[in-house]
């Protein structure tokens, strides 16, 4: 890269890969976590650790609390009780997040480049303008998600698969250590779905920790190193207490 700023942010990542070889430290620790909206608890009394190098898939039927849990992990929802702790020096601005696309965004007048660059707003510094290092990094992320040719295109005129890859490029710009994905392939055709998964697989291979909520059980589980299953649990005792199966594939 030959650039100071980017070299600094890479430093954290190199140290992590050394850590992985010793023992995978936790990135996020949930302890007796209860999450919910209004009076309703959706996830309750939940203990879990997300570790460095995980490819964690959260599966389960609609309304069981997958997205709620991810929002909790992303810091968008305050725990009603218990705690979510960022460990191993992880900061919010090192996390990339791919939320489900909103109605507002579908008709938003913005270029792809503007959207991808907006990922840097959480980074340190005042940032009234973007420097060259950031622009180059944005182009890299667009190249990784095969959207660099769309840089000047208008977001609202893209196809569903292209939109999703642009939002992944944005998440990637923000993600230095951890990437959270909320149903990244919903509404995509098989071809775009495959493209999306292969990009995510590649990222994980290069040391990114992945937490993904998905409906697409079969495909997702081929890649995942850990699975959190929300199914069949809710009925017994009200709010979800997901079972987890670790190291399913490795």
């Amino acid at each position, binding site marked *: 890269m030959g650039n100071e700023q980017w070299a600094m942010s890479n430093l954290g990542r190199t140290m992590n890969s050394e850590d992985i070889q010793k023992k995978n430290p936790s990135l996020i620790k949930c302890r007796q976590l209860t999450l919910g909206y209004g009076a309703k608890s959706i996830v309750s009394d939940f203990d879990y650790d997300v570790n460095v190098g995980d490819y964690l898939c959260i599966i389960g039927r609609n309304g069981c609390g997958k997205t709620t849990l991810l929002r909790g992990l992303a810091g968008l929802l305050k725990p009603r009780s218990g705690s979510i702790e960022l460990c191993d020096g992880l900061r*919010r601005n090192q996390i990339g997040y791919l*939320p489900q696309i909103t109605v*507002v965004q579908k008709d938003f007048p*913005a270029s792809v480049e503007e959207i991808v660059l907006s990922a840097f707003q959480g*980074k340190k510094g005042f940032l009234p303008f973007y420097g060259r290092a950031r622009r180059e990094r944005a182009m890299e992320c667009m190249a990784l998600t095969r959207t660099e040719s769309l840089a000047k295109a208008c977001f609202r005129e893209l196809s569903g698969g292209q939109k999703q890859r642009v939002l992944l490029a944005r998440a990637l710009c*923000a993600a230095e250590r951890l990437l959270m994905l909320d149903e990244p392939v919903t509404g995509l055709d098989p071809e775009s779905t495959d493209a999306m998964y292969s990009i995510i697989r590649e990222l994980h291979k290069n040391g990114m920790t992945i937490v993904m909520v998905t409906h697409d059980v079969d495909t997702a589980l081929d890649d995942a190193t850990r699975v959190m299953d929300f199914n069949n649990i809710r009925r017994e005792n009200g709010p979800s207490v997901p079972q987890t199966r670790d190291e399913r594939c490795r």
Partner: protein
Amino acid sequence: MPIIEKLAFYMEFPFVRYAIIVGVLISLCSSLLGVTLVLKRYSYIGDGLSHVAFGALAVASIFKLTNNMLLILPVTIVVAILLLCTGKDTRIKGDAAVAMVSVGALAIGYLLMNIFSSSANISGDVCTTLFGSTSILTLKASDVYLCVGLSVAVLAVFVLFYNKIFAITFDEKFAQATGVNAALFNLLIAIIIAVIIVLAMNLVGALLVSALVVFPALSAMRVFKSFFTVTVAAATISVVCSLAGILVAILAGTPVGSTIVAMDIVAFFGFYITSFIRSR
């Protein structure tokens, strides 16, 4: 030629020059934030806040405050913060809250003006405040300085935090999850909007403020495709329309506020047709 001579004649008067300076600055500020408001689906907030400002003005006139801005500005800012920053989990939903506050403030304001006013021409006063028929032409030098100061502050904040405002407008959740203090910038946006509404009330009157906020943004969004070009275009459209509106109003003797809004409507249809032709 006679039109130009007539204009040159009017330009001799300081109040005409004040009106033009204030008009350009206010329309610039309101259109910049208008893009964010429209995209965040908050178009109606401008309207609600202007009614609150009207209510505050009524209270200020009862107490015969020499500088009614001292009351109107803080009250409007507080209401803007309450409306924009309380979040989605409140018991009364956003749109209902806006409707409630806006109609309530309007009614109470009119009621108070009727009960306590010493003026002989209450309906005239109210009409002026609501439609801004003359206030833009009765500005004092001190009003102009205040307006210029506040506009420059709003512009500076907008330019410095342009990228943050974009990030939060496009995807507040993502911004928050990746470490942006979204609550702080929502607060900042709320304050700026309140300031703009109060300023714009001078120009077009309380009932027409949201036209100034909404029309230029919507016109620009018909044709332009990136946030930056939309913002620049909205600002340009708004300034040109306001300038044209003020000049037409002076020459033809029409009310300033509604003439400006009429210009904005014409521009909107112009851009609408352009986008329609392009898409064919």
